[in-house]
């Protein structure tokens, strides 16, 4: 027979394990298709019981009457940021309101619905806006500092709304959504010169609707080129005294990357050291005319380096070029050399758009909630 003290210790041990299990990440933030089935369209009408206005996605809970049965549905909407930009607020719908919601149902069959269409008494309540700022008709020159060098990160504003949301080899045309999911899986081999194992893994991730993405599941940093694939963007902070550039992220886990311009060596870049955060590798930069040239080694393998799930290995070396040809355009070009996952070096490029007079928006990848 176990005495009370032993029982208590066993209980504590089991409880600590169970706590670990229940706090394991769920699909808190996710590509829509990872959690919801696009083919399972449906509509419900019910009375609002609660509004949960939080990152990463807002939830509205409805009591839906079906005959004599009342069931509660969780309606998942876009992020507070996008809803706010579309004219919504936490008080736009209130408990007691009767709403009709059209959307797609959760893959697991639970009473969850993803919706972008909410009506009340036949009137549309929600129209999601595209928050991409209009490009000025007249091109302004890129700002320059006293030393004549182009300034990548002006004080107010950030770079967002990329022209491409996923890595695709230059000159290749394939259709993808903003999460990097291919419209046609048979295009997978065109995306990049993948080794057979890497192609199979990439296809597996695509077939699973990107639900295994560690950036969404575990809030892992979007290392490598993925840092430049978000609407919510990045900001350059050039620290000329210490000769380094900080690249701050608005979304994800609000992480940052450091590019060293002080001519330091790349020693230790593969296995990492105390000065090497590994998710972003060890980035060494220099200016070549108006282009910031950055070479980075020493990435770990704990993240997806692109929306859509292209694999990489710790052999990956990135050579990135950042150029600001005018006030509103950031040209990004990346050469990927990773003989562990690809059959040859390859390049991809896209542009990002300047969002003036705004700080990088805050949008955490998850707040530890379903």
């Amino acid at each position, binding site marked *: 027979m*176990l*005495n009370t*003290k*032993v029982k208590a*210790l*066993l209980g504590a*041990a*089991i409880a*600590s*394990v169970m706590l*670990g*299990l229940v706090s*394991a990440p769920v699909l808190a933030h996710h590509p829509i298709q990872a959690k919801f089935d696009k083919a399972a369209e449906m509509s419900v009408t019910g009375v609002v019981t609660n509004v949960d206005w939080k990152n990463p996605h807002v939830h509205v809970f409805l009591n839906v009457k079906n005959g004599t049965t009342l069931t509660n549905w969780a309606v998942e909407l876009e992020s507070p940021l996008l809803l706010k930009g579309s004219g919504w607020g936490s008080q736009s719908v209130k408990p007691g309101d009767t709403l009709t919601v059209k959307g797609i149902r959760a893959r697991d069959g639970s009473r969850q619905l993803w919706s972008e269409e909410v009506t009340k008494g036949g009137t549309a309540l929600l129209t999601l806006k595209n928050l991409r700022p209009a490009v000025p008709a007249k091109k302004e020159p890129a700002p320059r500092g006293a030393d004549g060098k182009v300034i990548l990160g002006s004080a107010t504003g950030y770079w967002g709304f990329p022209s491409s949301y996923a890595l695709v080899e230059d000159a290749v045309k394939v259709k993808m959504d903003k999460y990097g999911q291919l419209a046609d899986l048979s295009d997978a081999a065109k995306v990049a010169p993948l*080794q*057979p*194992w890497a*192609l*199979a*893994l990439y296809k*597996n*991730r695509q077939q*699973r609707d990107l639900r*295994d993405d*560690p950036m969404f599941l*575990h809030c*892992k940093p979007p290392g490598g080129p993925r840092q430049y694939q978000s609407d919510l963007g990045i900001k350059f902070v050039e620290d000329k005294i210490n000769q380094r550039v900080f690249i701050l992220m608005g979304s994800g886990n609000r992480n940052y990357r450091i590019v060293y311009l002080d001519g330091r060596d790349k020693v230790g870049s593969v296995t990492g050291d105390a000065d090497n955060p590994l998710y972003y590798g060890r980035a060494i930069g220099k200016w070549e005319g108006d282009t910031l040239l950055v070479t980075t080694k020493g990435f770990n*393998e*704990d*993240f*997806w380096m692109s929306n859509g799930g292209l*694999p*990489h*290995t*710790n*052999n990956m070396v990135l050579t990135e070029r950042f150029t600001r040809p005018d006030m509103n355009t950031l040209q990004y070009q990346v050469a990927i050399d990773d*003989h*562990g*996952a690809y059959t040859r070096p390859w390049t991809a490029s896209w542009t990002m758009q300047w969002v003036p007079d705004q700080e990088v928006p805050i949008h955490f990848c998850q707040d530890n909630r379903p």
Partner: protein
Amino acid sequence: MMSIIRKAGFVAAGLLLAFSVSAQEGHPLKGSWIGEWKGNQASGDFLFLVLDWDGKKVSGTINPGTDDMVIKAATLNPDNWTVHIEADGKVKDKAVSYTLDGKIVNLELPSRSIVGTWKSQNGGGALEVVRQ
């Protein structure tokens, strides 16, 4: 009483370890794998596999530090995620050759498994290792 407390501690630590596997989003075989090759009377049931990928081939060691058998051939077939591993070593001064065949299960998880069979001139049996 201490042994019960220690056992409880080991159970908790083991379970927590099982749920704190580090991510591995690169080559699916790379990493440390721990499990069993059941019925292995020569080397014991407990099996460690340490595997690496250099961009061209899989290399590694079976039971490093104890039996310490260097893997002489290892392949991954990405069409069906089957794994084939061959290694030679010595157990109690007698030469032994092992062949492991299995399939990666739960490919998408950091704690993916290789499930299959092992065989040697001394016999064979079931194999299961979990990536740590």
